[in-house]
């Protein structure tokens, strides 16, 4: 995990970085950690400008094409460097997508990315959002300001997840 972390921070030499890419490819757990880290970590904070679920869809492609992924990618080292620097610049969310896209480019048919950005794709994404999605976001955003959270910790967050969706009165 330490090497991966160093890789994300752009601290590794090219050959070492390449080794981490191999490790990521071989170890699904590590890959999940890498993704989660990027998606939920500090790096993503405030960065909301990329299409939601793109990384997931690219990952699905990765998962669906194991044999294609088996060879070590002939990734120009400058790409690794560039991505590593991007990560260091704390635009991890974008970097994740950029990294996967670069990493994938030789294998991933270009039209996949086009489809992902098409309005049709965006609408499907909206429809999949629960009707009260915004309210759920709001409830969670609100909870940290509730004095009850200071007095009972996350126990008070049970409000935000109890039942299904906010009930209409």
């Amino acid at each position, binding site marked *: 995990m330490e090497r991966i972390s160093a890789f994300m921070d752009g601290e590794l030499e090219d050959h070492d970085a390449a080794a981490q890419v191999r490790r990521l490819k071989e170890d699904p757990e590590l890959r999940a950690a890498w993704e989660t880290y990027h*998606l939920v970590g500090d790096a993503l904070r405030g960065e909301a400008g990329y299409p939601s679920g793109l990384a997931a869809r690219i990952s699905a492609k990765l998962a669906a094409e194991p044999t294609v992924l088996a060879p070590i990618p002939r990734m120009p080292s400058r790409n690794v460097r560039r991505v590593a620097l991007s990560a260091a610049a704390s635009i991890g969310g974008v970097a994740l997508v950029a990294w996967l896209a670069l990493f994938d480019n030789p294998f991933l048919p270009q039209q996949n990315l086009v489809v992902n950005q098409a309005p049709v794709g965006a609408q499907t994404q909206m429809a999949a959002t629960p009707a009260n999605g915004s309210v759920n976001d709001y409830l969670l955003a609100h909870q940290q300001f509730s004095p009850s959270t200071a007095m009972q910790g996350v126990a008070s967050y*049970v409000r935000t997840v109890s039942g299904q969706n906010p009930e209409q009165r």
Partner: protein
Amino acid sequence: MARPALLFPALFGLGFGAGVALADPLQESEALAMLQKIADAARQLNYAGTFVYQHGDQVQTSRIVHFADASGEYEKLETLDGPRREIIRNNDEVMCYYLDAKIMRSEKRVARRSFPALLPDQLSALTTYYQIRKGDSERIAGFDSQALVLEPRDGMRYGHKFWAEANSGLLLKARMVNERHNVVEQFSFTQLAIGSGISREMVKPSFSVSFPEWRVDRFAHNLTSNVESGWAVKNFPAGFRKIMEMRRSKLGNSIPVTHMVYSDGLAAVSVFIEPMANRSRINEGLSHQGAINIYTRTINDQVVTVLGEAPATTVMQIANSVSFHGK
């Protein structure tokens, strides 16, 4: 003389006890010390237990583990009834896992605001708007407790009763009541272990998020733009003050949402304003989630959503006085 004094609030049925001395009133400093002790215990102690959350006719049982060491605070909540949900806190990051829907929502704390961060400058407000007294000691989940009662002096806020463990101050039970003294919501431990036997392992998520099965939602905030949005609440209820204003944005959407927070020290109300174009569906009117009242209305092409652990009248009054006065 004590008897008519006690009858007063009962007669009006609204807890309008202003200026009426109830049994065992607390000095401001004493009340604050008790609240502070509760907050410190919640932050510093290691504990694990099962608690019941009640609101309306709903009852939900959850398990909670809190672990703190030099590296920080970690917490895990698992619902035991109904849909499987898990909440993990790693210091300032809170993650909600909806296992049935395979959605994870994450929220970063704006600032390490340890209670009573809201209180010091609102201390006088607290005693102006709540009558604070000690309650009886009771036995809860096998522990002796000391109760603290905060009764509102008007109908714009709920009443609170806290039962703190007699030695450590850990909150064993918390109850919110409306002006008719009906229970709005209640948290109560049914089983609890404080101190030994709690490890870091116990606060880790039960599973890992995998793609593409899972979707991650994030409603990020940007405090660097902590500037006036141009939106204001003209007529908020007495005792409430604006404590925060920020811009937020949803994952995959760059249109900003204005988020303002008002608090009277014990209850918080959030105001969210976003362009109508941002929303796929708008449910105008009053709704609630647990004890949180939610009121949604539209102003021109903007959607205003106000929510908080306060009576519907308070939430609606705030929503109805939101206006744009320009930048």
